């Protein structure tokens, strides 16, 4: 168990493409660190550099105070779980899990007891003599985990280990991974493109975009204080709504109407000059059906009328969609997010559509004119040009 430190690490491929740029990351001993970002953001490359499967072009990588830039993967004492599991098909489950121990020259009794122990933790005892081809996806995934934990390595590296499982199993395995990690207390770096996994699993989450680390922090920090448009748009589901706005004193002109800032939002807007054009970010849950809001909190926000395009009822809550005018926010970061989500090509998907998360008791119907309430203390302000969160200014 040890700390993993990336110090100004850069990965440049022979064709000049920089997959990871000047990355500084400090993973504490025993910490569960998530690397998250859209595909192609360099998160897997960063993980593979820690594993030693990719050379480091510049910078320094330390695992437990030892610089490991030039050390072969086998001598780094780390275990990795691959996205496709990479089980050895010609070996049984037992042999698969025993393989790292055998290579390390462990005695037969030690191998047996450790494999048994790992199999017990992962509930694989009755499958030990089967081959990977005869296992289900979830079982294969557990074998891959087992191969990693038998050795008691300094760190676990996991490269999207759950992405090949179906949705239900993924949720199950998510808690399983979390349970195993906290039980073993091993430093873990976990790569995923799924922000839900990132939010639920990690002690801390590092968001990456185009090879550059955007923000590192606890899930709550990322959610409540995103450093820029990208992080704000990436974390949270459904995503944060963005719209252009103009600030005028403590009033912000939004497409749906003027809102007087209260609470945290007025603090966040403190650094913004009056009359400045900004991008305002509003989380879906900052809206509410005006009829559902009690009188004492009603003052904290503003109500406005709009026509509801679509209502999605999920049982515990409702998502309602409505359009706002002159709403398009031009931003490289948001465009990239939309591309990654696959919505960039859907006509009108991002054009001024706002999603609000309402209580399930709300009676708002599709196509109806409705009155919504907006919590004006929950607005986020971003610079139009740089996408920076203006609260940090």
């Amino acid at each position, binding site marked *: 168990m040890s700390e993993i430190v990336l110090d100004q690490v850069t990965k440049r491929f022979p064709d000049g493409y920089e997959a990871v740029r000047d990355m500084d990351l400090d993973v504490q001993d025993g910490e569960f660190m998530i690397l998250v970002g859209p595909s192609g953001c360099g998160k897997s490359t960063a993980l593979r550099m820690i594993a030693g*499967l990719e050379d480091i072009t510049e910078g320094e990588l330390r695992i437990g105070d030892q610089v490991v830039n030039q050390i072969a*993967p*086998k001598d780094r004492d780390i275990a*990795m779980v*691959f996205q*496709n*599991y990479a089980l050895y*098909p010609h070996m049984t489950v037992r042999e698969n899990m025993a393989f790292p121990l055998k290579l390390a020259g462990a005695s037969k009794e030690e191998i047996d007891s450790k494999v048994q122990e790992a199999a017990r933790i992962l509930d694989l005892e009755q499958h030990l003599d089967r081959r990977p081809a005869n296992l289900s996806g979830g079982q294969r995934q557990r074998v891959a985990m087992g191969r990693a934990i038998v*050795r008691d390595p300094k760190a676990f590296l996991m490269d999207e280990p759950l992405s090949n499982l179906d949705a239900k199993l993924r949720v199950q395995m998510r808690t399983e991974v979390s349970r195993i990690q906290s039980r073993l207390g091993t430093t873990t770096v976990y790569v995923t493109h799924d922000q839900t996994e990132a939010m639920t699993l990690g002690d801390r989450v590092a968001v990456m975009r185009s090879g550059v680390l955007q923000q590192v922090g606890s899930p709550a920090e990322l959610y409540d204080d995103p450093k820029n448009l990208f992080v704000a748009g990436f974390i949270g589901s459904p995503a944060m709504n963005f719209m252009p706005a103009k600030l005028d004193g403590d009033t912000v002109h939004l497409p749906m109407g003027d809102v007087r800032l209260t609470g945290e939002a007025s603090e966040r807007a403190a650094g913004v000059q009056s009359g400045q054009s900004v991008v305002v970010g509003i989380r879906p849950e900052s809206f509410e059906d005006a009829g559902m809001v009690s009188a004492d909190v009603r003052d904290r926000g503003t109500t406005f009328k709009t026509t509801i395009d679509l209502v999605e009822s999920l049982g515990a809550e409702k998502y309602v969609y409505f359009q706002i005018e002159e709403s398009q926010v031009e931003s490289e970061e948001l465009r990239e997010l939309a591309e990654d989500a696959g919505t960039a090509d859907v006509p009108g998907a991002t054009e001024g559509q706002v999603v609000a998360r309402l209580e399930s008791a709300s009676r708002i119907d599709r196509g109806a004119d409705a009155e919504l309430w907006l919590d004006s203390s929950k607005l986020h302000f971003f610079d139009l040009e740089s996408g920076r969160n203006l609260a940090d200014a």
Partner: protein
Amino acid sequence: MLVLIFALLPVVWIISLSLKTPKTVGDGRFLPAGGEWTLKNYKVLFEGGFDNSPFIHPLINSIAIAVIATAIAIVLAAFAAYAIARLNFPGKSIILGGALAIAMFPAISTIGPLFDMWRSIGLYDTYPGLIIPYLTFSLPLAIYTLVAFYREIPWDLEQAAKVDGATPFQAFRKVILPLAAPGTFTAAILVFIFCWNDFLFAITLTSSNDARTVPAALAFFTGESQFTQPTGNIAAAAVIVTIPIIIFVLFFQRRIVAGLTAGAVKG
């Protein structure tokens, strides 16, 4: 079915020939007139023991030369193919292209120079004298076959082995080689058959039973008298030399199971 008949007809015909007596061998019928079958053609081949039989020594030569050449070709090709499939090094495509060019090279055009060279450096009529040219032509074949198989093996497996603590050679031996077994057997069969069937090099680069292989030895068979053709004997010998090939293929066919890598990675 029709294809099967078409392919097997010559084989059945040669078996029939090998069982005919000198009197009926030329009658052009599938079943000899009078129903006269004989095993004499086979017996003659083995008469006289190791020194005097026209067949036993060449058969041993054939087996030894083909086995040695196959073993060397597969070991060398395994390393070469692995390097080509996995590593990036300058001249990689030249090596592969060169290998292909050599495999395509007409063997007949190398015969003359080889004959002269082998005579002057003492390789003429020896095992190495045949094994070396066989390697020249079969190694590219083996490399090509193996490269295709190695490329099929998920690279992740090897990386997993490295992270699990294996040296590159351990990863190759314990993970890649077992998975490439079907490809290795395929390549081995191809190389073996090539060496086993060769007539051109065998007839040119040998002069005695010291190194002469069966296909060449067949040409030196003589009849009972100078007026009889050794047709029956040749047919019998041909049947015998076909048997090892059939056994070889049937035996290794079980190993060539597609889907050996199933379950390795989700894909």
